[in-house]
């Protein structure tokens, strides 16, 4: 009996920590089944096999920080029927997007003795700033069960079942006591769901590693932080971590800085 051709999967890395693609290998119970159901055609971290495109599904980790990578992502897009970005680096520019708020030349010289050897762009940007993206999976890192859901949804031609409410909703569903009542700043009310409200379950405020939810009310949350005693520096710091360059977080952190300047 002729076997149906297995869909081709490719996993790509741009500027990142490898954590999101590692989530694929962390699917210990499913990995061998995935390898059976899919043709893993390109996945540098996992295999020396390399097959040419086109690919049915490309998972893209990491952000664009060099002109070479800006070119490369266009090539990847051309070769991919569906392109899904995985993780905060790919969906928002990642922690390395902190350079977007500073002078990158200075950054290079802090890290390297011979800055002239280093090629880099002034910004770290999301993949969707460069090419059309079919789905964005959030998180730093992504949640591996959600990743599995996204892979199977794309292979079956359906929409991934990934909730778009806030971490705050997940936290209520878990029956946690709100950490804000003890004065701990928590980004849960404006952060995209997906982690299952991990930080509050460990008695810690959410630090926003899934990035902003759709239409977050950042202003009112920040007002609550200020009332509880956070300074401008504190507020800017919480908004500027792994999703600093996501538009909603960026806008709010810049507004806070501007407000501070004006009041001086």
């Amino acid at each position, binding site marked *: 009996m002729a076997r149906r051709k297995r869909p081709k999967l490719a996993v790509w*890395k741009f*500027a*990142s*920590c*490898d*954590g*999101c693609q*590692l*989530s694929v*290998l*962390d699917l*210990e*119970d499913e*990995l*061998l089944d995935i390898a059976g159901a899919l043709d*893993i055609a390109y996945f*540098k*971290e*996992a*295999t*020396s*096999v*390399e097959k040419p495109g086109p690919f049915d599904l490309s998972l893209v980790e990491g952000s664009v*920080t*060099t002109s070479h990578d800006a070119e490369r992502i266009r090539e990847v897009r051309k070769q991919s029927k569906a392109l899904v970005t995985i993780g905060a680096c790919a969906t928002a520019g*990642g*922690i*390395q997007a*902190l*350079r977007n708020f*500073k002078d*990158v030349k*200075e*950054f*290079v*010289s*802090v*890290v*390297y*003795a*011979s*800055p002239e*050897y280093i*090629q*880099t762009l002034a910004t*770290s940007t999301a993949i969707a700033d460069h090419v059309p993206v079919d789905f964005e999976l959030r998180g*730093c*890192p992504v949640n591996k069960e959600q990743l599995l859901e996204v892979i199977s949804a794309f292979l079956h031609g359906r929409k991934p079942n990934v909730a778009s409410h806030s971490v705050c909703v997940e936290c209520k569903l878990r029956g946690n006591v709100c950490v804000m009542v003890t004065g701990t700043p928590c980004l849960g009310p404006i952060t995209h769901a997906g*982690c299952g409200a*991990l*930080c509050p*379950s*460990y*008695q*810690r405020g959410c*630090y926003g*590693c899934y990035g902003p939810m759709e239409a977050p009310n950042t202003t009112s949350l920040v007002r609550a932080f200020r009332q509880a005693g956070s300074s401008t520096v504190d507020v800017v*710091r919480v908004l500027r*971590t*792994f999703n600093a360059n996501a538009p909603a977080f960026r806008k709010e952190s810049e507004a806070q800085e501007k407000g501070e300047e004006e009041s001086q």
Partner: protein
Amino acid sequence: MSDDKTRTIQVDYMTRVEGEGSLTIRLEGDRATEVRLAIFEPPRFFEAFLRGRSFMEAPDITSRICGICPVAYLMSACHAMEDALGVRVGGPLRTLRRLLYCGEWIESHALHVFLLHAPDFLGFPDAMSMAKKHGEWVKRGLRIKKAGNSLLSLMGGREIHPINVRVGGFYRAPTRAELETLLPELRWGHDAAVECLEWMARFDFPDLERDYEFVALRHPNEYPFCEGRLVSSRGLDIDIRDYDGHFVEEQAPYSSALRSRIRGRGAYLCGPLARFNLNFEQLFPEVQDLARRAGVAPPCRNPFRMLLVRMAEIAQVFTEAIRIIESYVPPATPFVEASVRAATGYGGTEAPRGFLYHRYALDETGTIVNANIVPPTSQNQLTIEEDLFELAPILASLPHDEATRRAEQAVRNYDPCISCATHFLTLNVERG
């Protein structure tokens, strides 16, 4: 161009390593005239943007340097901050940190041994195809890896970038009942690791012995994780605060990673083989026996045998994790409070791949004014290149494809983490 005398082994994009690097070896006869492990991963500038951040943020931010060994970053950063602020974390909190580190060693070593390196020894391009012939062993490896990950996610909230670690300890300490749920799988993992080591001892190990200078932490009563003096097989014995006085980092034009040397000597080796050779007597006696039976005992100078040493370390930390849980008494509070002051702090811990050094200068508000991180792969880069020089006669005797595979296998001995190696330095370039 190549004739029978000269040829070039070129791997443009190394596979089964973490991150983006290339390898070039130029052979003339059976001699290598040039070896370049070039790292082209774009830099992410962690040291630069850590400036101006709070001391409390360093652990979570630096953990994003590497998704495979985030606990190492969390631990080195916490220890450095605690050193700066004069905080001591002892008793059950210290033990919990060891337990968390056990989880990372298991997960990271198992990933490397079973998914990235074993396929080289058996002639497969990856673990998925290796599973077609050696399915039981690959499944065992995945389950061992999962046991490590379960420990990480229980204690840390998740496997990759755990959220439960802070300067001074943890946000929430686990209960004894929670930890006990892990015991059956940890006991299984220990026994499986022993079997896997016995199986792998029968692999074919290429002949290469080198007189390395090994560098690792050493602690008087335990196999090292977070504490001890930094020692070497050639007499180095220093407090980690003196690291910068004994080691230098330099930049090569073809690489975005910095590489380290011992001042006045040169290349050295850190990681499992160094820990094993320098701390053999701190392994549990049954692990020492196990290693000897598998044909590894100090001085072990064959880098290919690092595969076996990693397996022995997996057995060691499974045992340690089981013992910690069996005698666990939760701490009275999940963390020790720290008050800020202007100071410089030093932290160095044993990441799965070797010594990971952090240094931070803080101002009186606890804001970072200066940060410096040296990961193990930067330290091993020169040694990897030197190994390939030594391997030249073997490479020259092999057909091209096989020589290329053998060279890649030799690089993978070190489980290089290129994501870690990019973007670091010790040299502080001040621009006027």
